[in-house]
């Protein structure tokens, strides 16, 4: 049982479960006071930014997709937008809408994976969704069907769910016909209703009383909930074009991590992802998603990271509604892609991956070969903030038995849906008590 007092203790989780990639958590306590928190990332480095040099600009969407099997569409979208900015390519509005639909598919697939299979088991007290399915079969089946619908959108447009092949600089290799997309109509109508029900179910979970004064950062667009376009905005005064990203954000390399940690220059940690997007863009959610949030008593701003499961569900309502709207209004673009004239240039882009803002910058030479690449994934940006959450959260639960503290800390990490594979382009849990 609890072995508190004034001795120091170490709590450790050697392999953090239900996150994408490999990491550990290390927490040191003196009595019930936290003395150290390290989110260790031992996922091996894969060195993408180095081997992208010398590759052709057209290969960037296919190669960077391989950073992450969970959110390849995000990598493809940031890569194509950065290259198009470098090369001055103008995109057909119909292709832009198709890219938005493609991204909605990934949001539905990734959010359903996290809400039902990775995060809900924490709240309901199961080690995994398969055990959870023995008592909550309908919930797990709903999750799998939602996930499948998201995957269907991605594979219909991209050819397959993981590492789709159709997206390219300028547009797509091939675009779907109107009947092909309209075939998703009935599934998406079900998905809108299922995601509304999901938000109501998860809003009834038991949430720790924990709020932080976050700096939320996300893309903001005047007319739409952000996916591919917008300025980078925060609740504490940041409002910049993506071109200014590196003037405001810096990456640091901590010894305990194979992932770089990103900070706001002169201000420190910040938070990207569903919570940030929701708080900064509530007014751009469709009315149906806003109403679900109100019915779930989800505050704006929401500062409790444990409630991110509700926010993700509200974003699923958004993504399913948006996808349905795009499909119903879809007219096949006259040409699948815009012509691209090769010249040297520098391009940057940020898009909203399911886990948060994903920044790419490339410089290319006059033959179209990449000279320089920089990629900042969402989990690198959230890594410092996750550690800071734990500093504050552990002291709230430190008097409880070690097993319970460990599970609660894992849950606090999972609030961020961290993708460790991305961040090393990132995690194990270790809490020290003596």
């Amino acid at each position: 049982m609890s072995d508190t007092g004034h001795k120091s203790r170490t709590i450790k989780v050697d392999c953090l479960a239900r996150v994408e990639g490999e990491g550990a958590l290390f927490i040191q306590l003196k009595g019930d006071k936290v003395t150290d928190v390290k989110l260790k990332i031992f996922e091996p480095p894969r060195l993408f930014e180095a081997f992208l040099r010398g590759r052709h600009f057209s290969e960037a969407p296919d190669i960077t997709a391989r950073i992450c099997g969970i959110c390849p569409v995000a990598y493809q979208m940031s890569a194509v937008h950065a290259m198009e900015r470098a090369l001055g390519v103008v995109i057909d509005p119909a292709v832009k809408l198709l890219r938005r639909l493609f991204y909605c598919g990934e949001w539905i697939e990734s959010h359903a994976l996290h809400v039902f299979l990775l995060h809900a088991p924490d709240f309901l007290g199961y080690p995994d969704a398969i055990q959870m399915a023995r008592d909550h079969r309908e919930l797990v089946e709903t999750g799998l069907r939602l996930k499948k619908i998201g995957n269907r959108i991605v594979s219909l447009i991209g050819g397959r769910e993981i590492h789709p092949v159709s997206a390219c600089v300028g547009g797509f290799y091939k675009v779907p016909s109107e009947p092909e997309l309209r075939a998703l109509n009935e599934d998406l109508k079900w998905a809108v209703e299922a995601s509304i029900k999901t938000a109501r179910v998860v809003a009834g979970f038991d949430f720790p009383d924990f709020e932080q004064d976050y700096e939320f950062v996300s893309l903001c667009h005047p007319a739409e909930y952000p996916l591919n376009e917008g300025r980078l905005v925060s609740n504490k005064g940041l409002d910049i074009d993506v071109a200014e990203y590196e003037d405001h954000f810096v990456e640091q390399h901590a010894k305990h991590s194979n992932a770089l940690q990103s900070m706001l220059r002169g201000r420190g940690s910040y938070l990207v992802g569903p919570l940030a997007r929701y708080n900064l863009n509530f007014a751009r959610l469709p009315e149906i998603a806003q109403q679900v949030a109100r019915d779930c008593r989800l505050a704006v701003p929401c500062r409790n990271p444990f409630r991110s499961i509700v926010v993700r569900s509200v974003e699923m309502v958004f993504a399913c509604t948006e996808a349905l709207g795009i499909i119903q209004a879809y007219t096949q673009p006259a040409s699948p892609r815009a012509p691209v004239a090769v010249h040297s240039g520098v391009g940057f882009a940020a898009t909203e991956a399911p886990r948060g803002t994903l920044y790419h910058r490339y410089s290319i030479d006059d033959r179209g070969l990449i000279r320089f690449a920089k990629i900042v994934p969402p989990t690198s940006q959230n890594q410092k903030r996750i550690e800071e959450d734990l500093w504050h959260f552990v002291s709230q639960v430190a008097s409880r038995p070690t097993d319970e503290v460990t599970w609660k800390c894992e849950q606090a990490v999972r609030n961020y849906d961290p993708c460790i594979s991305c961040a090393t382009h990132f995690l194990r849990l270790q809490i020290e008590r003596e």
Partner: protein
Amino acid sequence: MSSNNGTKPRIGVFKFASCDGCQLSLLDAEDELLGVAGAVEIAYFPEASRTMSKGPYDIGLVEGSITTHHDAERIQKVRRQCHVLVTIGACATAGGIQALRNSQDVDEFVRVVYATPQFISTLKLSTPIAEHVPVDFELRGCPINKNQLVELISATLAGRKPAVPTYSVCIECKRRGNVCLPVAEGVACLGPVTQAGCGAICPSFRRGCYGCYGPMETPNTQALTNQLRVLGQDDQQIARAFRAFNAWSWQFRKASEECERT
């Protein structure tokens, strides 16, 4: 837990350097997942469960390549715990996209990505699992095909050889009735030397195959190189095409090196 659980075949899923996409394929088999989970005990699968049961395992599914000293030791332990060891995907079977370091200066690579290179420990080469331990079956693809994964698990449990073809992507193109892009439109395509399994997705989306399933059985890479030259590709472009997700497979490696020599 029912007492039957002790008799169900036990599966372990192990990750090395990779993107997680191939193990995600198991969770992406939405229609089969609960069925598979009923037929086997998923004993070790950290991406999906907090329960991490110790070995031995009847089937070990290994994703990712070996890129660190620590992982080179870990794969030996994993092999000892698995009755049947199967590698899933291009990283585990051919070193993956991260094997692009193999022909380069890895120390320089680390300096490019990390401000404090001395914190990083990595090997000079990204190598497939079979270069370290005996492997019972290799499932190809970047990513693998989830239907092939379900077939592989069912076949292994039934004690039969999985029905996984080793012919080229061309056969799948013919079966889908695709027009041959290199012949009809002069598009560069690795389909003639690449193992089937994806269902000829790229040509069906009007682009050339980029070889993510790796070399087919006895690929004629020299003939393809010659044909790509006819289509107007220069040797640098051809070398790059072979040097991607399966760059370290010996057939594609040889083909890319030959382009550089000429």
